[in-house]
């Protein structure tokens, strides 16, 4: 029997960046096939190639044993492939049935046959266990139901293979379980499901086969049953040998930051932190490891005052700072290099100088009686550009004209040039080229030597093992364990990231 889908050595480049490199993917009919990998591993690119949204630079696509060229999504749909995107494309003012049939309305005498559309939607929804009310307006419905409508849209267009891009990212755990039920129903009826995720749990729970992508390459394709979660983590993040550990004097400073039993919720009101506790001392780099989405972002946001905590205490230099505003926390002495630097870290359209001013516009000598000292600002910016080796024409260059690495240096320059005693650094080298990475690591080490207490959040284990004195591993909103930075055991950290305590064998999520 031919494969339902077969991708043969697909390569896709965006300029000099290679998103997929010689990827092979063979999916059997009637299976749930998971594609897993870290953010930026090339999962979504690969699926967009399969759905005709992107054209591969090299390689072939075979569907049901036939070679196909898919110049656009319409061709993919005609070949029986449907895709449910991460972001839904529904019209809130139309009903469920109208959305399902949007663009392919059932007509009767030139008019839309609403009755037939509603009946057909109802029958499909019954057949596949996707509970919806066909005549309800979409604007009133929850995200979980919107996703069902997206799936119905795909079904009504005759898909036999359904691609779901991170389908659970927007769902509550309850909704996720219902979705898995539906997916199992699909394969029972002979359909094929391709499921993109970076959540190990889900992949283990629902998939028959799993393909792991890393840095745009296929690492392995295996039956899920043959794998453990820590196998998956190791395949996803790879071996960490690329950076040498930075030499350092031993740490002996006093405690700067103390976090005690910290809890918070995310946008969907789901618990994102579940009782996190740790300390960071002066002259120490504490690393936070973990697969993305296990509470690291929320931890950074709570510490910097951008997100309220629901329980717990944070103390800086012994003073409680829990619940203070972002402004007050900055004033208390926390500098923050945000993980999403283009969203939070800079104003892309403003000059480097104006970006350097953020957070200190009210402080002397940056401003006096409310009036900005532009001369001082320009001087300081010029000095920082030099010190941090920012490749720019001058202080007035707009940030958007800089490369990713140099934008990150702008953020570091601003945050490191203050007198904060504690540095919160989130993904400092994400999307940054090797040369800039070296420079950024060097700067972080200089800050350590200057006696700053540093919390370094990174999904790159090699970065943590190069820089951190201690590494805390986060899983599902808790700290699973702590490792010394100079003796990182691959096996052990993989298990912790997968939510397994070494020796116990039990999943932490099961217990939580």
């Amino acid at each position, binding site marked *: 029997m031919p494969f339902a889908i077969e991708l043969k050595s697909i390569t896709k480049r965006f300029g000099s960046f290679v998103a997929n490199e010689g990827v092979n993917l063979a999916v059997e009919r009637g299976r749930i096939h998971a594609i897993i990998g870290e953010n930026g591993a090339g999962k979504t690119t690969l699926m967009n190639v399969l759905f005709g949204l992107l054209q591969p630079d090299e390689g072939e696509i075979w569907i049901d044993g036939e070679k196909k060229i898919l110049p656009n999504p319409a061709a993919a749909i005609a070949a029986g492939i449907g895709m449910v995107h991460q972001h839904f494309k529904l019209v809130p003012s139309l009903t469920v049935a109208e959305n399902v049939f949007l663009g392919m309305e059932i007509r009767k005498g030139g008019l839309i046959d609403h009755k037939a559309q509603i009946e057909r939607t109802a029958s499909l929804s019954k057949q596949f266990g996707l509970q919806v009310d066909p005549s309800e307006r979409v604007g009133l419905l929850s995200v979980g139901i919107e996703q069902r409508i997206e799936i119905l849209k795909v079904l009504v267009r005759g898909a036999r293979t359904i691609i779901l891009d991170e389908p659970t990212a927007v769902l509550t755990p309850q909704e996720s379980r219902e979705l898995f039920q539906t997916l199992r129903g699909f394969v029972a009826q002979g359909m094929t499901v391709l499921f993109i995720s970076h959540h190990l749990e889900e992949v283990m729970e629902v998939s028959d086969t799993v393909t792991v992508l890393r840095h745009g390459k296929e690492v392995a394709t295996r039956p899920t049953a043959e794998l453990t979660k820590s196998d998956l983590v190791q395949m996803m993040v790879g071996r960490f040998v690329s950076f040498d550990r930075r030499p350092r004097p031993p740490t002996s400073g006093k405690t700067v930051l103390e976090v005690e039993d910290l809890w918070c919720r995310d946008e969907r009101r789901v618990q994102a932190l579940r009782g996190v506790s740790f300390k960071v001392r002066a002259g120490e780099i504490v690393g936070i490891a973990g697969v993305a989405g296990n509470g690291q972002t929320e931890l950074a946001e709570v510490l*910097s*005052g*951008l997100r309220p905590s629901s329980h717990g205490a944070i103390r800086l230099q012994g003073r409680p700072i829990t619940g203070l*505003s*972002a*402004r*007050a*926390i*900055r*004033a208390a002495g926390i500098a*923050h290099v*945000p993980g999403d630097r*283009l*969203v*939070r*870290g*800079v*104003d*892309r*359209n*403003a000059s480097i100088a*104006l970006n350097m*001013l*953020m*957070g200190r*516009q*009210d402080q002397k000598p*940056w*401003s006096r009686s*409310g*009036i*900005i000292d*532009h001369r001082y600002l320009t001087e300081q910016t010029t000095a920082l550009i030099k010190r941090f080796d920012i490749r720019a024409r001058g202080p*007035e260059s*707009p940030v958007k004209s800089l490369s990713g690495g140099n934008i990150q240096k702008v953020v570091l320059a601003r945050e490191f040039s203050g007198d904060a005693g504690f540095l919160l650094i989130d993904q400092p080298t994400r999307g940054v080229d090797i040369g800039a990475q070296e420079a950024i690591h060097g700067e972080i080490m200089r800050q350590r030597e200057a006696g700053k207490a540093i919390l370094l959040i990174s999904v790159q284990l090699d970065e943590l093992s190069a820089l951190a004195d201690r590494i805390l591993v986060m899983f599902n909103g808790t700290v699973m364990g702590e490792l010394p930075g100079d003796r990182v055991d691959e096996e052990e950290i993989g298990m912790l990231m997968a939510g397994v305590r070494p020796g116990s064998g039990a999943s932490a999520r099961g217990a939580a």
Partner: protein
Amino acid sequence: MSDRIDSLLGQALAILFALGLGAIVILTVDESPLRVLVTLLNGAFGNPERIAGTLLQTTPILICGIAACISLRAGLFNIGIEGQLFMGGFWATWVGFSFNLPPVLHLLLAMAVAIIAGMAWIAIPAFFRARYNTNEVVSTILANYVAILVTSYLTINIFKRPGGLSETPPIHESAYLPELFSFSRLNWGLIIGLVLACAVHFFFTRMSRGYAVSEMGANPKFAEYGGIDIKRQIFVVLLASGAVGGLAGGVEALGVHHRFMEGFAPGFGFDGVIAALLANGSPIGTIFTALFFGALRSGSLLLEVDTTASREIITVIQALIILAVSAQITIKRRASDSTAGERRWKF
């Protein structure tokens, strides 16, 4: 800086394009576009009196435009300037005819009351925007209708001057905003507008609070991260915008009409918003766009008398300009800004 020039150049081209379309419209009513242009220029700038007339038309557009700039730079859209203007105009007039005070003091009090009335009129939309993230476009536009009806009611039913007209009694001379020249109603309102434009420009480019406000408009998440109290700042900025809107009404009432009447100064609030948008939210740029609209309006008054083209032609051309410029802005945003979602209004 070159960015700014680029965008102004693009807008100049858009305006030329609209004028070209306008010429075709003029041809369809059997009038010569050249003659229309000559008449427009003559009507707007033909002699000192007409220049003063143009500046008289420019003043309310300018002040309303500055009110709009303040909110636009913060990423907010106060489209209720019209209502704030009516409120400011009415209450300034009320002070003007109800009290007997020494000259300068009376004027200052009336102006202050106009500003407070404008602020009061935006306070509720501002509070709801800051506290509950209610769309300020909708709430301020609705407040317009209420303001126009309320002032109309107060004028007709409570403060009507004896006699047949739907207007309040005239204000006392002690509350007059003095005229600049003997031959025109042009008054100190223009100077107030110009000084205000420079002050707002200074605020946004030189002051730390202005920096905080414009960063909130440019990238609210960045501003929040930098420790700026977004909610409080939204409230304060909208109040400031409303204050200037109220001031615009005060200037019209105290400087030009010396009373308040039904249909006091319709449309200036919207003209101001458009002038500010055309100027990319720059108060200095708004001086020029307001002058442009003022000249169009003033010129069109002569146009109606001297040619067969009706004044509606100018309204059509004005609409074409707005359309062309907003299309140009939208296209540019699509082309250049992949993170367009970051800011709600781009300048």
